[in-house]
């Protein structure tokens, strides 16, 4: 039962107010894309034990989507940020590195440790 801070309305929201939306920062592949790219876009997801980026919606609250960076093992939340981003913003990356010095951002969303 997590709590996440909704960056859109400022509420520290109980998990029961939220709806999960899976991995964040996927790149959409549409018509014209290769079979491999499209397959990855549809089906391939990171499943790390550790740092992960997720989409959440404040479903029973302001209704807005936002992103969360958290550790799937310890459930530590490094921060939440706007959904209107293609990659985690610098302050989120800094917050993660402060707690997980070995972590670096890879566009695939997968951490290397």
């Amino acid at each position, binding site marked *: *039962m*997590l*709590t996440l801070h909704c960056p859109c309305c400022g509420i520290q929201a*109980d998990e029961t107010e939220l*709806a999960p*939306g899976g991995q964040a920062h996927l790149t*959409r*592949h*549409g*018509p*014209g*894309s290769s*079979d491999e790219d*499209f397959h990855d*876009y*549809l089906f391939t997801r990171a499943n790390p034990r550790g740092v992960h980026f997720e*989409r959440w*919606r404040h*479903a029973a609250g302001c*209704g*807005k*989507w936002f992103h969360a960076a958290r*550790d799937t093992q*310890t*459930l*530590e*939340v490094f921060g939440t940020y706007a*959904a*209107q981003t293609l990659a985690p913003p610098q302050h989120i990356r800094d917050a993660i590195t402060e*707690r997980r010095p070995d972590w670096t951002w890879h566009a695939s969303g997968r951490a290397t440790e």
Partner: protein
Amino acid sequence: MSTRLAPNTPGVGRLIDRSKQQNFTFNGKRLTGHAGDTLASALLANDQVLVGRSFKYHRPRGVVASGAEEPNALVGLGTGNRFEPNQRATTTELYDGLTARSQNHWPSLDFDIGAVNSAFANFLPAGFYYKTFMAPRPFWKHVYEPFIRRSAGLGKAPDPDARDPDSYEHFHAHVDVLVIGGGIAGLEAARRAGEAGARVLLVEQSAHWGGRAPVDGGEVEGHSTEAHVSQLLAALEAMENVTLRARCMGAGVYDHGYVLAYERLTDHAPALKGPRHRLWRIRAGQVITATGAIERPLSFSGNDVPGVMLASAVRDYVVNWAVSPGDRTVIVTNNDDAYRTALVLRRAGLAVPAIIDARVLPADSPLMAEVRAAGIRILQGHAVDHVMGGKRVRGVAICSHAGEGGAVIEEIPCEAVAMSGGWSPVVHLWSHCGGKLTWDETRAMFRPDPDRAPTGDKGQPFVVAAGAANGALTLGEVLEDAVAAAERATARPRTSDAPQAVAQEEAPLAPVWMMPQGASIHHRAKAWLDYQNDVKVSDVQLAAREGFTSVEHAKRYTTLGMATDQGKLSNINGLAILSGALGNGIPEVGTTTFRPPYTPISMGAIAGAAVGDTFQPIRRTPIHDWLEENGAEWEPVGQWRRPYTIKRPGETTEEAVQREVTNTRENLGLLDASTLGKLIVKGPDAGRFLDMMYTNMMSNLKPGRCRYGLMCNENGFLMDDGVVARIDEDTFLCHTTSGGADHIHQHMEDWLQCEWWDWQVYVANVTEQYGQIAVVGPNARKVLEAIGGIDVGKEALPFMGWVEGELGGIPVRIYRISFSGELSFEIAVKAGLARHLWDLLLTVGKQFGVMPYGTEALHIMRAEKGFIMIGDETDGTVIPQDLGLNWAISKKKEDFLGKRAQQRLDMARADRWKLVGLETVDGSVLPDGAYALGEGENANGQRNVIGRVTSSYHSPTLGHGIAMGLVLGGPDRMGEVISFAKGDGTTTIEAKITDPVFYDKAGEKQDV
């Protein structure tokens, strides 16, 4: 015998009020107790030493403990609708009129035939069930299971027709510091946290504050512990920022400081109004677990004979409830604490023939000296060889602890045995959310490892153990630890020293896991570890020999710790035995996982308000009440209720449906279509956005016009359909399926917020703003003209157009769309006026033969027309092309959701099942979902299938069964007859493949 001590006995009965007598029954026998008694103390006061039979061997069992850890004294409480099995007598507060029954015996508690199992104990060893359920296979169900079910088990499940008449509720609380446990440590920690300004909630599972301290004695700041507890309580009650809750158990600790606490409001006084239980759903910044410790039994032969109790429990019964467990109590121990029990018994005028101490100490400890001075005999280095007696203790046989038993030195007659194997901190709540333990060799206990506490949302530790729960056992240690815990939880240093405590110093304990230390198999097979699941020392040793070396495996193999008490008394002794058998250290063997709840909580509390009419939200349309009053047979559509049909008196459901279809086709039908989703999509990019959402083109729709559209997800599969109306240049109104509105609204918001956030589009869900009434049938126009106000003629309002205006003075928007193939107007009206319009249509429609119809008539009419239904023709694997809907897939658009997916190889496969109509050869109705049979069998020996029925009805219009289905190569097989399997698996039903449009293929009727 066990009895109530006389009123003038010094220092006993602190919790009972002798002036208030309470009557209760046990197995139908009328007994009396006092206000403040627990059921256990009242039973003991009435010499009811035998309280139940054991799980496997039906051995006589008595009360062992005085609190939540009690394994034996489980009873069925109450009768009828309020009957509850497996209630612990030790935590059940007595009230006038209480009814209790013992469990797991036949024909009676005193004489139980099942006790014969005990004679076969050698045949019921560890892993008995696994070994038994091997062969022959038919015996599983018909021989072994009925036998085991009858002879084993705890309480009976309540009558399946019983309905709980009580109410329950949840309560959400957010606090800075939650303190679990209202003993002296919890009280001290709560006071410190309160003084530091934190918002504090303190919960205590029992009805009393102070925990063991008032019974165990000692002095704090020159006062008795009892007086000190009162002072602490008064201080806490005076604090605005502190909430105190007795009868409220911390049940479970979860992620990010989420904690469940279980408050029992009326169990002790059923006449009270209000909810019976309350489940507190707490978010705490920090949790202090001041949950105390539980005394361990000693494993000696006959340690389960009624009258053998924990030494601390004996003390509790004497001091708290003025109950003597017997005139003579022998004490067996490996530590000093049990000596307090001797002193308490002696002060109450009871005999302690001997203290049998497994230790040999170089010199007397202060407690020992005090006991010796009181003239009590101490036998050091000795052990209980076995307990004498069957249904109650008659005495103990003593041997040397160093030996293997059998060489009895002396037999001491007694009525009770008080045993103490040391103390185990209650680490359950610490452990629930990942707190780790460390083995304390000196104290022989697992205690919380403060460096490996559960962590919260910022990675911070959020649980702090305090007092005995943290391994502190002496009064001074406990208080100091509580102050330290409050410091950590509030991140504020102490402003004053911990209270000064005076208590006797204790000599260290000597771990004793088996008594005597080399006990023979004969002794071990009667030395119980888990009383509730009947697991003995010999069972655990057998498991180890058979290779169950992991503590988690051994637990499941032997069922040690798997009963309702979850091994509160047995776990540490059990794993110590396992570690001995394996030759590994106790910390290497480790503990099993502690899982919530700490003790069982009621299903009612978990459900809270989600019962009866608030079990789940039922969504009601503005016409709901009319339908309810006029014979609606309800059908759930998502959370909505829609009428399947509106039955008239004397009609069968089928007759009603056929009548509704026929009347709508011939005269005039009314449908409450309010559940249709309605989304406003507005903005300069609205057209472009809808072109992405729908497979067909929406951006070129003209204002004033409607268009049917299909929505696919990115996998290419159909997810929704509906009619889109263009309201003006940058505003569209999208209709979704019933029950699909919220989902599609969120789907749109998802793409707008997370993918195309630079597009200028806003969406609003106005589903519930409007009631929607479909006016359908040849007389549809007539009734609207009779009401008047809007020109609904063919020119003013052509098919697939919409108009706005006032119908009979009611502002409406009318869409000329048809889901039935008839002339049809769907009227959107403000929800607050929908009933008014409905009534008006019924009144004015009378002359035109008006009749409301339900969803089944709607389904039949749409099937007659070959219209698909999301959820019938689609199941999440169907693409529009499968349904012959290629006409609704734009070829001009570069992109739309699902376009790329529909180009994948699998989607373009020639052998995909495709939509066709099906007409049975004999006119009967195909079973919904039936499979079409192909040739041969698949690899699993199942018949190959070549299609399935997706919708099937009896068509009153055509007079025979019609269906739609997905069939391999279907559209190319028109006229072919194929076989469908009936539900019985043998008979088949033949059907001809046809066009899915059965009725008015040219679509003339809807376009008049």
